[in-house]
């Protein structure tokens, strides 16, 4: 039996640096190529030496697929393609192709210029890497080569996020990347058709969360900001330029509109304006509501949110500022933080994860004093809030997706091990499906049934259909297809035996048997024949036993009664060799009557 082999290099019982190797039908495909935001050493990138201890990966990998632009899914891409070496195709959606290089460049700058890291990829490498990218549209069937076919489905989560269906021969998988089964402020819900893959590889970040409490978190977020500006405080929201920032902006924009608030809201200029432009252009990837209303008012043309200028930092009165970067490790957000932290009226809201070593990480852990390189010390009196807004499917959503696409097996990645175990059990119970959750570097082997497509001559199918439809309808009736497979250069075709012999240029030799059984039964032959018919039909319940003109027939087996009206009757049973088993079964049955 053929199999599918899956080895996570990252995201196996873990969140971060998603990178999953898939082998099926002799093809190797890399699903995502992310980095781990929590490490600064070589653990930051997936261990590509697993694929090949030394030298480029191109001979071992046929295609790379990137699900979305988050760095834990694409952050290692330039490293893999330019430094380790990969020249094959990389597939991603148009928005991902547009946005990923910006985030990669942003991250590179922070790592190299601010933290002074060595041996990191360069700007040029990002550009060279992006040249290898083939952009795909949703639902388009893309042939990577003659055998690999991929298709992207909408995944919600972030702009341009996609789930990928991958087929090689008769085997197929679906890789979800990160997805979201409930529409949010600016994105729609993930959707997939009943594609029945052999394996569904699903993320499981929120494997144990049953009810999405996002609405509550949103209300909380707005309430906190509102309270803060009401007492004249300043709110700082450090964000990364793309993704969550846009959702929070829509959230604030609509709230400001509804509550008629006057406190200014600013968005740090530059990259952000550009970022909003991406959202405007890729409006077809957002949710129904935004798409419907974009002509009257583009959701990303904000009315209340204005560009920020550094001079505003010292402005009196309340304000809300979105500033980059999100982890408070450098740049404008840090500058504002230093100014505002000492006032207890002010507030900082961290809407995402912060890496160890950053100021963001320190204050989230309750640091009340933060010391900087130049011995500058900042007292943190402002309130510090953490709110996660990441859009992932919860347990219910994951189960829903399984229902949608009806996989034969399920694999959980991108989640914590214990939570996975819980969901794994649930999936096994509810759907009776095998569920896997390999750790990093561990290989899961999934057996798949094969279905081999063969050509069949139409007359053979039509003859069967005619025979079948001539019988009274019975859903339980077995339909049997029998024919001869002709294998020759130029293909394999199934056809009727006579046709096959003609194709091969041979003459059939028909072997027929006729046996005689003596039966004592008085009366006319016809009545004996009727009795035998009933008897044979009873012995062969699943077969259609015919009776016409005194003869009983099942397939090619014929039963004929001869003799005078006296006791002794000769019963002839005749059949061709192809019905040997059936013929000898009938003969033995009649022999039993004869005795």
């Amino acid at each position, binding site marked *: 039996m053929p199999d599918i082999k899956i080895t996570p290099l990252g995201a196996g019982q873990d969140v971060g640096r998603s990178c999953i190797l898939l082998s099926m039908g002799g093809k190797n495909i890399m699903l995502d190529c992310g980095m781990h935001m929590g490490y600064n050493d070589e653990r930051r990138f997936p261990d590509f030496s697993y694929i090949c201890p030394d030298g480029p990966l191109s001979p071992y990998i046929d295609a790379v697929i990137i699900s979305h632009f988050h760095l834990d899914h694409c952050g290692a891409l330039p490293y893999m393609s330019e430094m380790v070496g990969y020249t094959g195709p990389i597939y991603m959606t148009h928005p991902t192709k547009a946005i990923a290089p910006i985030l990669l460049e942003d991250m590179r700058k922070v790592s190299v210029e601010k933290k002074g890291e060595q041996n990191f990829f360069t700007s040029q490498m990002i550009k060279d890497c992006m040249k290898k990218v083939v952009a795909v549209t949703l639902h388009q069937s893309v042939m990577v080569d003659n055998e690999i076919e991929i298709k992207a489905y909408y995944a919600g989560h972030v702009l341009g996020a996609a789930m990928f269906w991958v087929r090689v021969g008769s085997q197929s998988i679906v890789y979800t990347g990160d997805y979201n089964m409930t529409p949010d402020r600016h994105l729609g819900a993930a959707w997939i058709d009943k594609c029945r893959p052999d394996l569904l590889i699903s993320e499981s970040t929120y494997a144990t969360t049953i009810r999405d409490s996002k609405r509550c978190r949103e209300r909380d977020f707005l309430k906190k900001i509102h309270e803060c500006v009401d007492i004249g405080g300043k709110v700082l929201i450090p964000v990364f330029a793309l993704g969550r920032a846009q959702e929070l902006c829509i959230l604030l924009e609509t709230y400001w509109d509804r509550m008629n608030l006057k406190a200014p809201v600013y968005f740090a200029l530059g990259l952000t304006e550009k970022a909003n432009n991406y959202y405007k252009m890729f409006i077809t990837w957002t949710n129904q509501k935004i798409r419907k209303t974009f002509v009257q008012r583009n959701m990303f043309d904000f009315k209340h949110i204005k560009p920020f200028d550094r001079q505003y930092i010292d402005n009196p009165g309340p304000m809300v500022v979105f500033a980059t970067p999100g982890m408070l490790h450098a740049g404008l957000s840090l500058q504002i933080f230093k100014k505002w932290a000492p006032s207890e009226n002010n507030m900082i809201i961290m809407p995402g994860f912060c890496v160890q070593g950053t100021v963001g990480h320190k204050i989230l852990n309750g640091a009340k004093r933060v010391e900087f390189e130049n011995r500058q010390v900042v007292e943190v009196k402002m309130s510090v809030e953490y709110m996660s807004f990441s859009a992932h499917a919860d347990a219910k959503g994951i189960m829903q997706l399984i229902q949608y696409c009806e996989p034969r097996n399920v694999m959980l990645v991108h989640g914590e091990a214990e939570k996975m175990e819980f969901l794994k059990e649930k999936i096994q119970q509810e759907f009776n499906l095998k569920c896997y959750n390999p750790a990093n570097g561990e290989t899961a082997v999934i057996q798949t049934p094969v279905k081999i497509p063969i050509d069949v*001559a139409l007359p053979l*199918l039509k003859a069967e259909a005619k025979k079948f439809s001539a019988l009274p309808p019975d859903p339980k009736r077995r339909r049997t297809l029998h024919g*001869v497979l002709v294998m020759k250069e130029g293909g394999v075709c199934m056809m009727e035996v006579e046709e096959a012999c003609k194709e091969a240029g041979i003459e*059939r030799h028909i*072997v027929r048997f006729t046996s005689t059984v003596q039966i004592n039964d008085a009366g006319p032959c016809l009545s004996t024949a009727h009795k035998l018919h009933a008897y044979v039909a009873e012995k062969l319940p699943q077969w259609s036993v015919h009776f016409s003109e005194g003869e009983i027939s099942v397939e090619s087996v014929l039963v004929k009664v001869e003799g005078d009206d006296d006791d002794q009757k000769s019963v002839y049973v005749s059949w061709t060799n192809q019905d040997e088993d059936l013929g000898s079964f009938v003969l033995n049955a009649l022999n039993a009557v004869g005795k």
Partner: protein
Amino acid sequence: MKLYCLSNDPNKPCHILTFREITMMLDCGLSMQSVLNFLPLPFVPSQKLQNLPTWMPIDVTDPELDGELKENGERVFVDSPPEFCPPLDKLIDFAQVDVILISNYLCMMALPFITEGTGFQGRVYATEPTLQIGRLLLEELVIYIEQCPKASFASQWKNFLHKLPYPLSDSFKPKSWKQIFNMQSVNSSLSRIQMVGYNEKIDVYGALQVVPASSGYCLGSANWVITSDHEKIVYLSGSSTLTTHPRPMDHNSIKNADVLIMTDLTQTPISNPDSMLGVLCVVVGMTLRGGGNVLIPCYPTGVVYDLFECLSVKMQELGVSNCPMFFVSPVADMSLAYSNILAEWLSSAKQNKVYVPDELFPHAMLVKNSKLKHFKHIYSDGFSTDFQEPCVVFCGHPCLRYGDIVHFIELWGNNPRNCIVFTEPDFDYIDALAPYQPLQMKVAHCAIDTSLNFTQANKLIRDLKPATLVVPECYTQPPVSAPHLTEYTIEAGGDRTLIPYKWGEVINLPLKRKQGQVFIETAVAQKIVPVEIKSGVSLSTITGTLQVKDNVYNIQDSNDKLKKYVKYEWGTLNVNEFIQKLSHEGINDAKVETHGSVVVVHLQDEDALIQLEDNSTHVVCSGDEKVRTKLRNAVMQCLKKF
């Protein structure tokens, strides 16, 4: 396989294709030539049109016909809301249609006539731009006609067709003409459309697969590839090999079809779109510099985007960039906005702009700089304050029978400095202008049709190598206007069959299915034992339980004990060898008799007889299975089998 032709206009096609028990409609274009026979619909009553004399046939005095027809110049027009010629509904019941495939937004205007009130229950497939822009065109059409309601409907004239002057007398099936649908029908009809992407494989009841492939003609335009297991049919409609704003044509997907149906070729076979664009720019420049206004009748989408782009550059060069461009259409804002979000459907040059990110079309910039101003109507807020002359106005409808353009013609028609420039190829400009004559304004004709011309089409056919080519009959003859230009035809050639069709015909297409496809499971496959009959040819029997679901055939392992491993014998049986084998089985009393070609072997002791012929053997014996089994073994050992 059959093809029904339901439309009289190859540029507004509508076909039915039946194959594998599936009834598919290919496009549902709405021919609008009929509206040219009607008087224009102004928002406010027009003196000129109202004062046109009534026309009556010479020997007719039917009072009911009185007032239905008006005369202007040599032409007679119907004074009534315009009517349209929908696809023929006599050949097929639309309730039977399983699937409608739409190739581009210009070929779907009859959709509400097909899907609403007909019992239609099938699915409609179109790309996202086709749906979105098609909606704009339909809405625009309905708004144009509904905003100018007419008090009376003329219908009597249809009974006097033979007495009417040309071209009214030549009207095509006027009794089948219909009033336009309402907005509710448009919405409910469009709600049936399922959006698809290029190269998306769509399964049609398991029997067929349909795939839209980019056709390069306009945003979201597609050619459809229809395949079953072994057959490939390509429906090519509205295609272009020129480089304009849409995604280029996908040649690969449509190659080597068994049947290629080709329609919707250029309507201006003699002129070249590039030189027409050049002429247009010159005319616009000259008119503006002479202080005149330019009126360009147009659809609210399509080539108009390219015109904004070219003209703005040209106007800059000619020093008339201070003259504004106005784009007036109830859907102008939507059209401009949509075109800038459909990156995935654009040429790669335009597509790459999203990575900058930059606006896809320069018209976004032109709007920002107030070089291009768009309004829903001429009576919309702000139009009268922004309006300044001289200027360029893009406005619909190109047939000049409804829409704001009616007023621009009234406004500017008497000034010879103004100029009306025809760029849309759908309507003959002389016919279009007929009810307004006499006019003082200049008329320029620069029809820009980017769809395939005959040279391009013939070259394409040679590249695509279809086995059978199916085209409207009119493409096999030179244009009526230029009968000597035989190069403006589709060539018959090579070993491909050329089948012409025309309106109302049902033609049989020479595509005979010979093979289907079944899937066999591992357990069944494992039982296949190929026997090599001769070099390169092997045979093996195969038996299993057949499961048919959604037209997909699966063979599963059969658990039937009585009919499992059926084999077939072949060749001839050698009598001597047979006697030898019998003795191996312990039967030595064989007595051989020969009657011509038949050999009979008698076995006295066993009460049996074997009759041998070249291609058959008959074993006749008593009911004793032991004996028969021995005989069978002997026979089987002498024969080859697979």
